């Protein structure tokens, strides 16, 4: 379930904490597992629990508490747009509307080809760069005018066609 590479990444995190506090690495472990599997299936969470010596339900608690963990398969590219008040004042909602119409999906939906999932994000701590969005939890894009959104969607669409991005709907489960 957890590839050798993934285990290495987890071990690096575990090393940051006191020897008897492996559990401190659970958040990053789940994050890396999500990068690899696209979402956190029960098997993945079980495996992480086993690897860190935690009760499975404790891992489940963590995975469901933090919003960036995917509890079900997503599109290859999960786009989270910030619609918080400061962003909304500078075009956050306009950007969200543009993406919805361009991708023909609403929030928490995935495009038919499994390329995109759209999410409504809460404050990303980048309100000054509004509109802002994050791709697959890792890549933040700032000043997303409709034109820049179109560029991004084209770029990611092609990447998805090449099978890049995360395992999503099609391939997961």
């Amino acid at each position, binding site marked *: 379930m957890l590839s050798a590479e993934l285990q290495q990444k987890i071990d690096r995190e575990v090393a940051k904490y006191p020897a008897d506090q492996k559990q401190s690495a659970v958040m990053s472990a789940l994050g890396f597992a999500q990068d690899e599997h696209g979402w956190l299936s029960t098997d993945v969470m079980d495996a992480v629990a086993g690897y860190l010596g935690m009760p499975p339900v404790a891992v489940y608690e963590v995975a469901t508490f933090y919003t960036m963990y995917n509890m079900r398969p997503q599109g290859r590219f999960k786009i989270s747009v910030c619609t918080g008040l400061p962003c909304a004042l500078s075009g956050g909602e306009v950007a969200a509307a543009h993406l919805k119409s361009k991708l023909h999906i609403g929030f928490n939906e995935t495009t038919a080809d499994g390329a995109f999932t759209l999410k409504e994000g*809460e404050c990303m701590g980048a309100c000054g760069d509004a509109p802002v969005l994050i791709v697959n939890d890792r890549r933040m894009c700032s000043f997303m005018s409709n034109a820049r959104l179109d560029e991004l969607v084209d770029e990611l669409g092609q990447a998805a066609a090449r099978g890049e991005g995360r395992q999503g709907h099609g391939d997961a489960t």
Partner: protein
Amino acid sequence: MNAPAEFLDYGPDAILMAGLNGSNWRLKDYIARGGYDALKKILAEKMAPDAIIAELKKSALRGRGGAGFPTGLKWSFMPKNYVGDKYVVCNSDEGEPGTFKDRDLLRYNPHAVIEGMIIGGYAMGATRGYNYIHGEIWEEYLRSEEAVAEAYAAGLLGNNILGSDFSYHLHNHHGFGAYICGEETALLESLEGKKGQPRFKPPFPASFGVYGKPTTINNTETFAAVPWIINHGGDAFLALGKPNNGGTKLFSVSGDVVRPGNYEVKLGTSFATLLQMAGGMRGGRAIKACIPGGSSAPVLPGDVMMATDMDYDSIAKAGSMLGSGAVIVLDDTRCMVKSLLRLSYFYYEESCGQCTPCREGTGWLWRMVNRIEHGQGRNEDLDALNSVADNIAGRTICALGDAAAMPVKSFTKHFRDEFQYHIDHKHCIVPTYV
């Protein structure tokens, strides 16, 4: 990820952000700017921990995370002759809507934060430090990891720092999307690999912190200010600001201004000046309202703000809080009901669900505001909003309850007529919401 250059102009008073161009964040650049001189001085002079804390007290540096608690005083709470590990934790979980200053510190001047944390470790006799970084800013996390690696490589972190007998280990911890983890005890729980649910205090972190060990938590900007204070002295820092409000402060200006962004000004600078630095009101419109300290701070009418100075005491006098220094500006085209709706939704979404009033009350508030916004308002709603907010505020384990109640109370206080209009006419008083 470098933003357009003009955003690196933090203003003439900048000290923390002086001379930054977006790419000179590395160790060598920082050292060229006089970085780590403070640490070297401390280690060379074998400066007494109490002397450092005394300087901080003199400087009147107040916590930049929201509560504005005097930093020197907080550091003095750490048990002196405790055997075993003590911890220093940096709160970079910047999630308070409108706040985006710590992100700039982490990406453009990460070593200032690291040096501040090392000095904190020295002053409080701590052996380990963690920087808890907001989940949404992964690139800044990676950069912080690089910076920490640089510091280790240069012997600025680890055992026997710069050949001294002081050893201190520092690591970055990456969050994954939970505003509540900005609350210090929730942050500690999260650091321990649990849900971010705040702890009841007492015991306070200084006696029972991460892993049950004595811990001091400060905001990123607070730590970043420490090296400057050591280099130039507490008095110099105090002199930058006003009594009891020492130094400069980063303000994150967002909303209806020409140039949203971070501006570092002396505490006590007038709001008007700050607004000017941000290019003034967008489209030359009139200012209607301003939330001066992050979404949790009470909103103030524009005219009140225009007459206010940007420091803890002045803003408190005006009836709000300086908070995290997030200044959200709204112009006269903004609907206050819709604006409150967005904030209420945020607190409803972000409540950890641990204590009853917050878990149940934030949803209730949001649903009521939502009805009003969508033309389903009832006359009793306004009073209900206030009493529900009152039943949440001060009844919860952490201050998120108060943070959720404050906007509701202040919006309905200062803009009651707009809410009433919504209830009566089922639509906005302002023509459009652009």
